[in-house]
Structures are given as C-alpha cells and as structure tokens.
C-alpha cells in the first residue's frame, strides 16, 4: 500500500506542553480523518508520526536527524529548532513547514528555498495588529506609545525590527519589554513598568505560561483589556480559561478562525473522535488551537496534492513536496472543496513568496471563548517586503555559500 510519512516534531511535554498539545492533536486528527474517510490522499496513506521535542532545541535537532530520512517534511515547531535546521535543509533537501512561526524573512522563497511559513509571518501579524488598533489609519498612531511585551528569546524579538520601522515612519514610540523564561509566571515588574509608562497599547509576543501571567497581571493593574493585543500564539483558549472572566476584552490576532460546524470539522468528529480513533480533552474540539492544528496539516496535504498532480505520481518525495508547498493555490473554491471555507483566508504561495500573506482576523475573549471581532485584515506588503529582502540577504551573506533560487524570476 502506498504511503507517505509525515513526522511532526511535537511537544506534548515540557513547560509549553499546554499550548502544544491541542495543536498537535488537531494536526494528527486531520490526517487520521483523511485516512479514514478517503483512504489518504489520492490513495496514498498518510502516516502521521510524532517525535517529541519538549520544545527543547537539542531534542529537536536529534528528532530532525532521526526523521529526515523518512519524513517528507520537517515541522520544527519552535523558532530555536527552526533556526537550527534551516541551514541543513538546503543540504538534506527537506522542506521545513513552519506555519505562522519561525523566522519572518523565510517568506523570501528565493533565499529560503526549503522553508515555508504560510499563511502569514510574524511581521504580517505585527502589521495586521497595528492596522487594527489604529482602525486602519496608521497616522493616528502618531505620538502614541506602544509596548511590546515579549518573551526574551528569538521568538519574542521577531517583530521588533518591523515595529521599529513602523514607529519611525508613523511617529509612535515603541517600547519592548522582555519577559525572561523564568519570569513568565511572575511578571509584576513588567506590569509595574507598563503602569508607569502608561502606554496606549500593549502588544504581546508571549508563549505558554507567559500568556496567562500577562493577562492576569493586566487585569490586576487594571490595564484596559481592549488595548491589549496578542499575536496568534497568545490567543489560546486553554490559557484564557485559567484567567476566565478577568480576561474579558483581551484580543489576539489570528490567521485561523475556529468553525466547528464546517464540514471538515464535522468529518473529524465523525470519523475520528466519535469512532474513538483518538482522544482529545473536553471542549478542546472548539478551541482555536485545535482547529489551527487541522489547518496546518491541511497545508501539508494540499502540498502533497499539488505535487502529485504536477509530478504525476502518487507517492511524493520531499523534493516534490517542496514544489507543492511553493505552489499552493488555496482560493475560495479550493477551501470550500475541502470543507474549510471560513476557517482561513484564501492565499497562494509562489517561488518568491513562501508565506502567502493570507491575513487574518481579530479574535476577542468573551470570558468563555474567542469570538471574531473584525473584518479580514491583511498585512502591509510595502512595509514588510523591503525588510524581508534585506534580512534574507544578510542571512545568506552571513552563511555563504548559501544557494539562491536564481530560476525564480518573480
């Protein structure tokens, strides 16, 4: 029987397990559902596997070594692991799929031929948030003060260059406030600073326990919740549940929308959960992160489908999948066909565009769940693109000789 192997460098253990688990469940269950419902993708079974990293870079690198021979894609799942495997992917010829995370300049597909961060990069996220809080009028930010509360790690520092560019252009003050990994649960110093600085907005690049800590402290210091916005990894139902009512009004940008009634979710319910093929926590099915996990697996599957069609084969190789991921065409119709309309904005990728820049929506915590509170927002290409290009170039130069996709003429 034909099969392709898709291994996920998961983290269901360690300090970030709470956020990792629903994401991993979603990914697994989508693949299981396809296997159950359709017998895989065009007759090829999807062998979904996990290699546990515990969000630890060293374990991640080990998992990469272990799986690179068999898996047709690497999903590193942490910025640290992504940076680690990024240079190796050129040599090993395995695509890296890092949806909505990793290194923002990766969206430059010419330089990062093997890395993909659809449907949006962190810089997209930052741009979308700014657009939303300024209600579409970035000039209105002039003279304002914006705090970036971030994890003191490469992930948290990702949006800084772009936000700085914005600050210069639109005349607002950007104040990054770092939170150490060991201080995640104890952010009173950071929130005292926020109280002192009286910013107009607080943006958050937080992860795991940091999100809970931040929202709790915000409530404590009476920071207006509607001025507090997180990136998509800071909008986790599980986190917010432990804050409950106090977090009411907190918003998070998201490139995905939970839509439990969509046909794909209903199929998962029918073929996987009801059939007891897998277990998930109570209420988890409706969570943003679980359904985001489903979407992430969809990227891989659609990549496989594209590659199957293009190369006219059934069992695609890692190199063929790379082509597939570079040629995703997820328009309205395609999304509808796979039963995911309304869960993600349509987008497509190209050889120079590995992110797709799909845009997203603002979600707001209403005390019990996240609800959509904005129209579709897209990122500012003219702010982001130049930065992507310079940073990508810098990376390539620092790591010379670095292969560039010269064939890509776009």
């Amino acid at each position, binding site marked *: 029987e034909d099969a392709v192997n898709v291994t996920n460098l*998961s983290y*269901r*253990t360690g300090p970030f397990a709470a956020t990792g688990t629903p994401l991993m469940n979603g990914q697994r269950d989508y693949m299981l559902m396809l296997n159950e419902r359709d017998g895989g993708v065009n007759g090829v079974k999807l062998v979904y*596997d*996990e*290699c*546990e990293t*515990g969000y*630890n*870079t*060293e374990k991640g*690198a*080990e998992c990469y*070594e*272990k799986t690179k*021979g068999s898996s047709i894609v690497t999903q590193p799942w942490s*910025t*640290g692991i992504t*940076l*680690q495997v*990024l*240079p*190796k992917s*050129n*040599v090993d010829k395995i695509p890296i799929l890092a949806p909505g995370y990793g*290194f*923002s*300049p990766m969206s430059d597909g010419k330089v990062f031929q093997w890395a993909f961060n659809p449907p949006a990069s962190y810089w997209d996220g930052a741009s979308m948030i700014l657009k939303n809080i300024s209600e579409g009028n970035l000039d209105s930010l002039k003279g304002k003060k914006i705090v970036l509360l971030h994890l*003191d*790690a*490469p992930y948290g*520092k*990702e949006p800084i*260059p772009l936000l700085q560019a914005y600050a210069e252009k639109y005349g607002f003050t950007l104040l990054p406030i*770092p939170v*150490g*990994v060991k201080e995640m649960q104890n952010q009173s110093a950071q929130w005292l600073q926020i109280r002192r600085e009286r910013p107009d907005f607080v943006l958050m690049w937080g992860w795991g326990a940091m999100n809970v800590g931040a929202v709790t402290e915000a409530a404590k210091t009476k920071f207006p919740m509607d001025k507090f916005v997180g990136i998509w990894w800071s909008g986790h139902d599980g986190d917010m549940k432990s804050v409950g009512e106090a977090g009411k009004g907190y918003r998070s940008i998201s490139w995905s929308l939970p839509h439990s009634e969509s046909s794909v979710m209903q199929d998962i319910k029918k073929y996987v959960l009801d059939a007891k093929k897998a277990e998930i926590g109570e209420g988890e099915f409706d969570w943003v992160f679980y359904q985001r996990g489903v979407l992430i697996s969809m990227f891989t599957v659609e990549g496989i489908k594209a590659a199957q069609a293009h190369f006219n084969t059934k069992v695609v190789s890692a190199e063929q999948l790379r082509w597939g991921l570079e040629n995703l065409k997820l328009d309205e119709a395609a999304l509808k066909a796979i039963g995911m309309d309304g869960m993600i904005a349509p987008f497509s990728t190209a050889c120079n565009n590995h992110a797709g820049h799909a845009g997203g929506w603002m979600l707001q915590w209403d005390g019990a769940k996240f609800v959509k509170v904005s129209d579709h927002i897209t990122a500012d290409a003219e702010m982001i693109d130049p930065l992507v290009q310079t*940073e990508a170039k*810098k*990376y390539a130069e*620092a*790591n*010379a*000789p670095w292969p560039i996709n010269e064939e890509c003429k776009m």
Partner: protein
Amino acid sequence: MLYRTVGQFKTSYHADHALFPVKQDAWLLGFILLIAFVVLPATANEFVFNALLIPVLVYALAALGLNILTGYAGQLSLGTGAFMGVGAYACYKLVTIFPELNIVVAIALSGFFSAAVGVAFGLPSLRIKGFYLAIATLAAQFFLVWLFEKWAWLYNYNSSGAIQVPNIDMFGLTVAGPNAKAVVQYYFVLCVVCLITWFAINITRGRIGRIWKSVRDMDIAAELVGINLMKAKLSAFAVSSYIVGVAGALFVFLWRGAAEPVLFDIPLSFRVLFIVIIGGMGSILGNYLGAVLIVALPVLISFVPGALGLPVSSAMVEHLNTMIVGATIIGFLILEPHGLARLWAIIREKLVIWPFPH
C-alpha cells in the same frame, strides 16, 4: 585471571610514571581507540554521528572541564552551560571578524575567553565555599545568558538573535557549517577531545593536579602545607573553563550548527554535572562513561518501544524517558556513589583477584 597485575614490576620511577603502569589498561585503551578511530566511522550513519557519537564526545569534553573544577579541585560549579556559551560566542566572533582564521586556532583561542570569564567568576571562591559557591557560578550562569540575549554585537546584530555557523573549510574539507559531513566533524571532534584528554591526564597526575586535589580534600590543611589557595583555585577555574569553552565552541561549531542563548541555560549546566557525577568525580575515564550513559541512553531508549512494536505515543516515550533517566541517576548513585569510574575500578579489582571472592 583476566586482569593479572602480578609480575608486572617497575624498576624505575620512569616506568612507574608511564601513562598506564598496568599493561592490560594500555591494551584496553588501544582497543577503544581502534574502535573510535576505525570501527565506528566505518559503520555509523549520519544519525549515529549526530545524535550519539559527536554529542557523547562533546559532552564528555565539557564534563572533563567541569570535573577538573568540581571533581579535582572541589569547587562546585553550576555555570558550565554559560561558560560553554562564552566559548561558543567567542569562537563565533573570531570566525566572523577574522574569516581567514583557521578553525582549530579559533577554537583554541576561544577557550581563553571562557577561561578569563571563569577566573573572574572564580574569584569569590577564595571566600565562599561549598553550595554557597554555587551561587557565584549561578550568577555567572544567569548573567551571561542574559548578556548573550541582550548584547546584539555578540550575534552580529542579526535579526534572529541566534548565531549561525557558516561553512568553514580546512585543508579543502568542510569541517563546520551546513555543508560539513558528519564523519569529518566526528574525526575533528575526536582528535581535539583526545588531545585535551591527554593534557588533562598529565596535568591532573602532576604537581598541579595534586595541589587541586589537596584543596578539594581539605583546604585548610592545604594552606597549612604551603599551598597558595588563591593560585590553586583560580588555576582550576582557568583550566576548567578553558576546556569547557573549547567544548562549547565544538558544541556549536562542530555539532549544532546554530545556537540561541537559551541553549546555554541551566539545563545544559545540569546535564554536564550529571555526567560528571554519574561518571565519577575526580576521574577522567568517568566523563566518558557518564556521557555515554546520560547522552546516549535516552536516545537509545526512545527506540525501544518502536523496536518492540509497542503502540506508545512519542509523548509517552518522552515521559517514560525522563522517568527512566531520573531513576537511572538515583539507581547508579545508590549502586556506586562514586560513579561509573569507581564501578569500573571495583570490577577491575575483582578481575585482578578473580576467581577468588576477596
């Protein structure tokens, strides 16, 4: 009697000061080197190199460094990870500032940076002892990692905040960077590790080693037999941090290929400490045995369920693995608190008198 020492007489102090006064030990070492230099490279695949062999060597080297400080000189350090970081960042800066510099030279030089930092944080050891001294090294640990994060010059202001190893050639072979072959890196690391181990053996059995051990066993008495405690302790910090720094440079340049600051955080320090204690404090051999146990065992364990065809999820494997490692540490400590090296010594002693029980 496999291990017959009877009949091996020494007729000069020269002979008594040879590396291996007992013949069997020399043969055993020869055998191990043969395996390390010939058999393993011929049989290993890339995964084995990258997940087992190279890490075992690098960790053993770091443990050797820590062992000099903790096992020989008796100064507890919980900051090994940060000192490895100093070595790694120093090497990165050297390589990017002087691209023409030979990588061997760069690695050798980077050790001096961590030695200097080590001495600076070792100064409090003149007044502070035991677990209290751990605070000095923890201060180093947390301060340095914070610095790696904050001081953008260290990572050349790149937007990822991490250091990335470029491709580096030596004698026409790529030894570091994404294009390097695992087997080349393995040989490189193996040679460095062997050389430093030989140095370490020499230092620890001579005058300086004796001074360190005296300070460890009883520092008051050491002072009263005329040993200058300051020199003794600081030299231990210097030599130890040098080796740890070199290990850090190898860690990033010859193995990982990239590093973000959290990599050098306290879990790394603890890992190296595990190796030292499980392997045996005050033993050179112990570092290798410990590294095999702490680094390689978990990797191997994670294959067990798959090999047996057990339907265990990878998360469960990881949980079990953590438990097993914890239990193994406790188990070995109970079995032989002085570490695997002592266990080996006892086995050897038993072999000497074998087949008699006592």
